[in-house]
């Protein structure tokens, strides 16, 4: 028999779990500016996550999907994607959405059950959160197809979890991205858990990155808890796509340090030992340790930044809590560009019922 094809999947990391350098750093990481900037954004994301969970527990926000453990992935994407690129996110990318300009209060309003959280002009052409699994991968290929048809040097970036790679949509998206050499990047936040199903029984392949091989696109694994490795990998993939060379699948190895959502209880299906071990690898502490070791960050700066972050978050929360309810007729008014005559009567009824004395008046 002849070998007609061979392939390898590479894994990259720069920072060890304990925050020491594993290899020579890229040039940009030999100076403090970018790394300190990343660190500050990661701290903000984490503290915000804690705050949102507190809001949920006190009934001020709805079911919420925590971002805990994905801080490095979102922070790097938010930094390296250009404004004119398009993000096609899933439901765990709110830190990234904010880095792309979505005001915190509006982001919070989404989790507070209000579609206006998807409507901010600051989101430009970015998609709203994909709640069904893996559908976003195809929307990203459609966006990338538009870029390619119009010969624009823009890139579509989509994010999903490890569970999403089991869906046909994901495979069909990789396939068309390869067939048409589309400017799209698929980020798999492999946080090891799809609600209660662990990575080990999600897929029989040794890596999720190797799904790229069957589609004829680049595929690689990267330590998703390591901002430096993430930066290198995403930067290269963006460059590749922007130069018209096609798509990349990046499997970012992370860990879901939270429950799936606030409606979930992960103690039902995973051990405390595993969770404890994952906390030893987490991205924020790791970068902090490295910054300390380089003399680029100290306790005074830490305290000052934590305080500043608290104020930023409080402002965002105040904005969210002060938002007036949306007009009830929004239920009909954004269904079609022009409301069909046949629906006018139902719209009138909705408004009538919401008025004082109506059956749905609050």
């Amino acid at each position, binding site marked *: 028999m002849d070998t007609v094809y061979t392939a390898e999947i590479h894994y990259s990391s720069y920072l060890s779990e304990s925050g020491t350098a594993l290899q020579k750093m890229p040039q940009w990481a030999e100076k403090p500016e970018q790394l300190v900037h990343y660190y500050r954004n990661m701290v903000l994301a984490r503290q915000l996550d804690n705050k949102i969970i507190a809001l949920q527990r006190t009934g001020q926000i709805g079911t919420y999907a925590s971002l805990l453990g994905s801080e490095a992935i979102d922070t790097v994407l938010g930094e390296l994607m250009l404004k004119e690129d398009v993000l096609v996110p899933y439901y765990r990318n709110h830190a990234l959405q904010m880095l792309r300009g979505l005001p915190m209060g509006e982001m919070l309003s989404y989790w507070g059950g209000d579609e206006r959280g998807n409507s*901010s002009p600051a989101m430009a052409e970015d998609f709203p959160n994909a709640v069904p699994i893996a559908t976003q991968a*195809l*929307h990203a*290929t459609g966006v990338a197809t538009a870029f390619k048809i119009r010969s624009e040097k823009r890139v579509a970036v989509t994010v999903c979890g490890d569970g999403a790679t089991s869906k046909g949509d994901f495979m*069909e998206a990789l396939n068309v991205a390869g067939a048409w050499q589309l400017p799209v990047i698929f980020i798999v936040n492999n946080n090891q858990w799809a609600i209660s199903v662990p990575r080990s029984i999600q897929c029989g392949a040794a890596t999720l990155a190797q799904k790229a091989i069957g589609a004829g696109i680049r595929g690689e694994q990267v330590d998703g808890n390591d901002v430096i490795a993430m930066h290198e990998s995403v930067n290269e993939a963006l460059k590749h796509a922007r130069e018209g060379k096609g798509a990349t699948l990046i499997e970012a190895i992370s860990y879901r340090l939270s429950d799936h959502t606030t409606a979930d209880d992960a103690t039902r299906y995973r051990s405390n030992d595993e969770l404890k071990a994952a906390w030893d690898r987490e991205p924020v502490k790791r970068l902090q340790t490295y910054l300390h070791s380089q003399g680029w960050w100290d306790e005074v700066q830490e305290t000052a930044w934590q305080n500043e972050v608290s104020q930023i978050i409080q402002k965002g929360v105040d904005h969210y809590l002060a938002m007036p309810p949306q007009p009830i007729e929004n239920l009909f008014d954004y269904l*079609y*560009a022009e409301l*069909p005559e046949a629906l006018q009567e139902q719209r009138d009824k909705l408004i009538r019922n919401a008025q004082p004395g109506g059956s749905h008046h609050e």
Partner: protein
Amino acid sequence: MSNSITMIEAVNLALQHEMQHDDSVVILGEDVGTNGGVFRATVGLREQFGIKRVLDTPLAETMIAGLSVGMASQGLKPVAEIQFMGFIFPTMEHMIGHAARLRHRTRGRLTCPMVLRVPFGGGIHAPEHHSESTEALFAHIPGLRVVIPSSPARAYGLLLAAIRNPDPVLFMEPKRIYRLNAQPVEDNGKALPLDRCYTLREGSDITLVSWGAMIKETLEAADQLKKRDISCEVIDVVTLNPIDHQTILASVAKTGRCVIIHEAPKSCAVGAEISATIAEQGLLSLQAPVSRVTGYDTVMPYYRMENHYMPNSADIIETVTSTLEFS
């Protein structure tokens, strides 16, 4: 002077017209490029407009729909083809969960001006899974327009309207009449409204309501009934979401009797919606119960038995007669 053309040629003509006048119109689907589509709806378009505007896709219907949503969010107007109605089901997550809700979810920030074209219905001795009429599955979805032409001229004007409409449209083509009844169609770029029924024939004794290929049998029945001095008003519903109930109700107010004819299975079909609306808003004008002449509540049979499944003009005449005799 305009040449007489068939419905499939009218579809092609509308696509060509709109591609010529709007650079954002892009065709995609399985075999739509070099092959010109399995029914030849897109024949010649790749040669005329190039490979960036007529895309032969990989064989994956979910992808065709999902890709179209992404393209449409960028301001393109994708016109995607699904080869047969029996293969449309993988698109449903994208049509229902995304295309129909993108404007609503983003409060108008992103929109989805896409068209999904699909041939449907029986009567051409096709393989299994090629002859279904599942329009009701889609007509139920808020935000998704469903349009069905029944003549070459209406196929031309309605397809132009579907492409120009800023929201997603499912454009269902009754393939049994793709090549029947050629008629002159002027390539004048005139779109037809997407919320109006057509009264194909005026009459005073009974209202016959139908759409798609069954319009042919309905008109044949009306012709034969006319010889017995029974005057049928024939309404082509055309747009199944939204439905122009007012035109139907006005006709029933005049005739007092109504028979609804469709090829799809009877239960929970669009005929039930029309019948319920007449009961809600036109009960007092009725002189007889509203009746339905439909396919059976069975699987659409493979072609040896399809003639037993599909309503014909004799079935319509029989039901019209009993409706007229009701007292």
